[in-house]
């Protein structure tokens, strides 16, 4: 264990002054990231809780409102995100093997897939806006309760569905935007060859973040798009 700050200079260029060795630094960063993800679970948990209650109360209205979402685009987006998680893993693997070129390629692919997700989400939101499904003064939803064609859906309950839809997918998209920012920086660093088999903690931790955002979507998709889809 190094005794004075001078002794730390600089067998390991990426070792920060207050850590004893690289292993301690890596473990600290990793634990920090997992704890941060735990806070994220609690953050989204608040919205999932609200969703759960209103879906239980207003199930019929939620089912009808859910069917107005574009299931094709939603499914495509799910596939896009899962693929992006794969490319992240491959990028981390490339860093572990010290392959700079494939790191860059996989990170670029991740970025493209992330942006594709956001683009598709944008198309979906635009059509919701045109259909007056955005909560507010001009909100209007036409549809009937499942099994009762002559009983229209309660406007307020449908509005709550779309409130939650926009809040949850909006928060998710915000995390995607932040992720795209982080991965652009990672791409730059990988291009410069900063990640080696010995040191690629930023890549690993950002990968954890990306997988987390992916998992949130894996829950959002069935909860929002697949309510009572059976004919």
């Amino acid at each position, binding site marked *: *264990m*190094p*005794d*004075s*700050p001078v002794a730390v200079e600089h067998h390991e260029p990426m070792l*920060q*002054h*207050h850590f*004893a060795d690289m292993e*301690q630094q890596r*473990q*600290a960063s990793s*634990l*920090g990231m997992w*704890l*941060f993800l*735990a*806070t*994220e679970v*609690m*953050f*989204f*948990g*608040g*919205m999932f*809780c*609200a969703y759960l*209650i*209103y879906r239980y109360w*207003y199930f019929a209205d939620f089912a009808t409102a859910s069917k107005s979402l574009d299931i094709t685009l939603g499914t495509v987006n799910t596939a896009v995100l899962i693929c992006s998680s794969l490319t992240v893993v491959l990028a981390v693997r490339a860093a572990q093997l010290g392959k700079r070129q494939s790191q860059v390629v996989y990170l670029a692919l991740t970025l493209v897939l992330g942006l594709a997700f956001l683009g598709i989400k944008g198309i979906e939101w635009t059509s919701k806006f045109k259909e007056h499904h955005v*909560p*507010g*003064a001009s909100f209007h939803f036409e549809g009937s309760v499942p099994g009762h064609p002559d009983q229209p859906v*309660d406007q*307020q*309950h449908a*509005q*709550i569905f779309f*409130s*939650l839809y*926009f*809040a949850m997918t909006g*928060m998710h998209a915000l995390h995607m935007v932040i992720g795209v920012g982080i991965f652009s920086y990672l791409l730059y660093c990988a291009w410069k060859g900063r990640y080696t088999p010995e040191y690629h903690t930023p890549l690993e931790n950002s990968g954890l973040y990306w997988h987390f955002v992916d998992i949130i979507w894996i829950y959002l998709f069935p909860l929002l798009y697949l309510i009572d889809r059976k004919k």
Partner: protein
Amino acid sequence: MATAVIAPERENYLNQEYGIKSWLLTVDHKRIALLYLVSITFFFFIGGFFALLIRLELLTPAGDLVQADTYNKLFTMHGQVMVFFFLIPSIPAVLGNFLVPLMIGARDLAFPRINLLSWYLYIIAGILMLHCMLTGGVDTGWTFYTPFSTAFSNTKVIEAGLAIFISGFSSILTGLNFVVTIHRMRAPGMTWNRLPLFIWAHYATSIIQLLGTPVIAVTLVLVVLERALHLGIFDPTRGGDPLLFQHLFWFYSHPAVYIMILPSMGVVTEIVPCFSRKRIFGYNFVAMSSIAIAVFGFLVWAHHMFVAGISLYSALIFSALSYLVAVPSAIKVFNWTATMYKGSIRFSTPMLYAFGFIGLFTMGGLTGLFLAALGIDVHVTDTYFVIAHFHYIMVGGAVMGYLGGMHFWWPKISGRMYPESLGRFSALIVFLGFNLTFFPQFILGYLGMPRRYWQYPPEFQVLNVLSTAGSTILAVGYLLPMVYFLWSMRYGKLAPANPWGASGLEWTTTSPPPTFNFEHTPVVDWEAYDYENIPAPEEARVAG
């Protein structure tokens, strides 16, 4: 001063660099602690100013000093500033920041730059809050209850909500830093069972900060969205449920009380063995009671909602769970008392504050049991009884602990001693002023005086005058330490490394510590609170 002339002052974290940039860009946990100290002191006096205005208005039964609208803003901003900008960061961000690495034998927190980021987030949030207050303020109560906050209030709800949202990030980052540091940065030999109990208390606090704060964050986001975009999630006229808001709000805001009190308990657990010259009684029980308080703290939130229309059965369960919190709290109080039993007690300033803490916290805790009882709660809900109860915990408990800790570690922080007799005097004044301010409020509440009104029936005046008089005494008690701490930075006696003869690694390094805390990474081969083998302070002073 003579020693200072003979030997040039040795290099420490305060004199290693000078200039404003060396402070604003520092990543040294000790300097960041001082940045926090200055900023939370500023907000403490703003919050205190609102409190004094409230007490002045309540001096007479008529609403003569301010109008009802202004009064609503005063108590709202008093609560928001004191809770989110003083109490939540107080001990963790100042004493915790300074001491956690020192106590476990580390050079710094695990993430020094994130530590600095958390201070900047706090400052951004604080500036937003100040701007909000100067341009109109908020009147929702610190609780932001919907639908008033989302649909009816004409004040700056969104700005205040965002300020508290951002300050929450600062709190999360502090907690995250502590947990990682305690797990990964302990010196060789510093096992979990040798950790000072201050560290255990901060560990429990950090868990609450990590798991609770994100929930208030998302709740505030939904309030802001609902107010700005008319979502309707919490609005009963649009199919939403205001009770959902209250559940989400108290899911954080009840555990938040433990964010305030647990670190104070940690401080008292350090002070009591030191000034009794005895090992702490029941180390494991004190450590685990901190964890138990953090865990139970998450299961009791709905006791704030007994009259809000929740089901009787869930109220019964929440009432029973609330009683459970009393068990670990009582374990702490009994263990402090048992530690003092047959100890050789010195009545130094930190110990006087610790005594004050134990007494006031016990009163606050016991009246909390009144409120956890369904029947009594219906009688005293929204009265001054509740106000008195939580001020006994948050001011009598948390602030007493904070001041006790500041006195205990001030020699380490500044390298100077404060004037001991003035210190004792201030502890006495704070204790008397506090009781005079808040004890009458128990009686007022029990007699039926409601909270949050700017006027009251004349028969309540005598008790209100007592309370207002007490608040001015309390104000003097709070100003006094600030004055003599500042004075001591220049004129105080130079502090030795271990002025109290205390255990703990922070006392093995110099006062003030060098930037990297220890000249050599310490290796721990002794148990915590080893007071049998530590020389009493007089001998320590000669040796040091």
